[in-house]
């Protein structure tokens, strides 16, 4: 082996660094599609479009479960008593303070629409159970009130309200 001049040396170093850098960029770019494919595919996205729900068959005191984007959505037709209970709470004393009015749509107080997934670790709570006549999660004992707010147990926050709007008095569009 011959010793090369220092000019050759630095040209060589430049080549090494440039080649290594370009190859590294290529490897990183190649990883992109391998990760991106894990995202929901186009048909799943399209299937996640808003859904309409007809509320007319739901009697007072009754609740139904519909699915949107694979998640159970509870729609409760609350009784006068339940609405009262939800209102007569000192909001400041709640673990996740939120007035009932912020959880329903104005003028449609009787309708509570929440995503039925416990904010603790994702189980589905049971409606009309627990000490507050709201929801009770059997997994680790979280108790929600008639507004879907957390009252007892390990869950950190209230049941989330999905995006929805009334398109008529008896019809909502979720999503």
């Amino acid at each position, binding site marked *: 082996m011959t010793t*090369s001049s220092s000019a*050759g040396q630095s040209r060589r170093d430049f080549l090494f660094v*440039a080649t290594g850098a370009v190859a590294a960029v290529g490897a990183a770019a190649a990883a992109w*599609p391998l990760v991106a*494919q894990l995202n929901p595919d186009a048909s799943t996205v*399209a299937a996640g479009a808003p859904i309409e729900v007809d509320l007319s068959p739901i009697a007072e005191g009754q609740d139904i479960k519909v699915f949107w984007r694979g998640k159970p959505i509870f729609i409760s037709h609350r009784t006068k008593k339940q609405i009262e209970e939800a209102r007569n709470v000192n909001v400041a004393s709640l673990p996740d303070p939120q007035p009932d009015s912020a959880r329903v749509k104005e003028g449609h107080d009787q309708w509570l629409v929440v995503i039925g997934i416990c904010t603790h670790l994702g189980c589905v709570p049971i409606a009309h159970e627990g000490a507050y006549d709201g929801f009770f999660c059997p997994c680790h004992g979280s108790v929600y009130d008639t507004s879907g707010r957390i009252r007892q147990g390990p869950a950190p926050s209230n049941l989330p309200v999905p995006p929805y709007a009334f398109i008529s008095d008896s019809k909502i569009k979720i999503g």
Partner: protein
Amino acid sequence: MSGPSTFQPKNPVLKWIERRLPIFGLVHSSFVAYPTPRNLNYWWTFGGILSFMLGVQIVTGVILAMHYTPHADLAFNSVEAIVRDVDYGWLLRYLHSNGASMFFIAVYIHMLRGLYYGSYKEPREILWILGVIIYLLMMATGFMGYVLPWGQMSFWGATVITNLFSAIPYFGESIVTLLWGGYSVGNPTLNRFFSLHYLLPFVIAGVVVLHVWALHVAGQNNPAGVEPKSSKDTVPFTPYATIKDGFGLACFILFYFWFVFYIPNYLGDPDNYIPANPGVTPPHIVPEWYYLPFYAILRSIPDKLAGVVAMFSAILVLAFLPWLDSAKTRSMRYRPLAKQCFWIFVGVCLGLGYLGAKPPEGVYVIAGRILTACYFAYFLIVLPILSRIEKPRAVPNSIADDVLGKKKSVVASALAVIGVAGLLALDSGSTARASDHGSTPPSMSWSFAGPFGKFDQGQLQRGYKVYKEVCAACHSMNLVHYRNLTDPGGPGLSIAQAEALAAEIQVKDGPNDAGDMFERPGRIADKFPSPFPNENAARAANGGAAPPDLSLMAKARGYERGFPQFIFDAFTQFQEKGPNYIHALLTGFEDTPPEGFKLPDGSTYNRYFPGHAMKMPNVLSDDQVTYDDGAPQNVDQYAKDVAAFLMWAAEPKLEERKRLGFQVMIFMVILAGLLYFTKRAVWADAH
């Protein structure tokens, strides 16, 4: 991988690990310090390329399996959903399907290199036999993978190949039933093929480890075929071989990506874009190109059992090569006669491949028999005799001598390159098309052709109009959704426009809470509907022939391009067979069939339809569909527009593919250039 390592780590953590699991030492001695002969040429790079391809196939395969559904009813559509809906799904699928071809191209070069330079000879017999085992496993894996998309060729290929085992005396039939898991190829067959197709690559990887282990014990062979004697004969694996292989690999990737991004279906068969149909066999069953020589041998023998035995022997004979060829001189460079015979043998293999793609009739059968005889004669007669009678030229004393006295064997390399091109050229899809086609459809000029081709939005919108107002009366489009009309690279409708179009149709949905089915207006997530409630209704309404779904029509139709045209097609990126055919068909109706042609009742004469008697009537006439953009309202224009629309429907991501392809190609050219100069800089020290 041989002997205790000389690797001495300094870092205390490495030291701690090395003392307990000497894995760094193993890597160091195998891939860094490992001495490689100085005179290796680029044919040796294919070993590294093969490792890379195995990696690509495993990675893309594992990902495809995340989206694929191995069920006879769902497999075909799940593959289409990958290509259409999954992010970069088209890329992953094309990388995998073309990757199989690249894997075989590389393995054939690797094997021929071994044959030419005598890499199977003492002390590398086990290394060679492990290679034959890898090759067999590859063939099994490739075959089962081809079955998974559950298209027509998949299904009938599976039927034919599994039926090979029925040739076994006495137990044949029961063995075939056992392989199928049923009375015919069906869902259980698909399930087990999927399971094994996922498993075998890991078995291959295991045998590859043994193969590399054996290689590192015996040391690499080299073009001179003499063993390294002193340290002057070798260079350390890293950086010398690594950088050289890196450059070779980059060139190979450029070649690979040409197929992936520009002609992704060139090496496949259009029939495989037709869903599997156990009731109809394609006119010619052809395997993938890489099996064609063996397929030709199978068909050359006029006896079922003997044909099967011959086919398997053609591969197994390779395992006995170390003993069939007992010449003391390894490299054929110094064996003038053996060298000539070797190139004749390469020609024989290419010839067999060509014949495998041709229908088994007439002169092809005779040629097939002659070449089959030549194939076996090379191993069983030529090599054993030559090794006794041939007087080889003097081999160099050492590798260092070989490097100094090097003269370029340009001729051999050029020949080999032509050989590779020939292998490629054995495109099963286009050569084996039915010979009963009448006229060849004229080649049209399409805006989406070529490396920068794009769909003409206006044309797609007009084409959709023709589809909706004419074709949709009989044909469905089950893979296309209203939402697709808004996709980039498509007709470019707004969401509101697509919603309005979708709302025009009624979709059967349900059951609702009451358990009833109901009708609702379409949404953009719905697909283009079928005008008939089910297939039998479609049949009944159309004189017994169900109008095919049009989603994949442009990919599922082809016609013979002929030799040598289909070789040029690889360079010109020609892939417009489908649209040309559709346009020709729609404009090829003739009121009066030619003299002497008996047209069956209920058929129309069509110049371009195979057999010419078409169940579909001529549905297009001038001024039938109103265009608002001033395009001519005549049959020719309608046919062109709807053909372009069907091409888009068959491959909605075409524009994205070409655009990404261009970027990737530019990148790879730069990388290959840098690797080349780095390689020169590194090797400057070695001479």
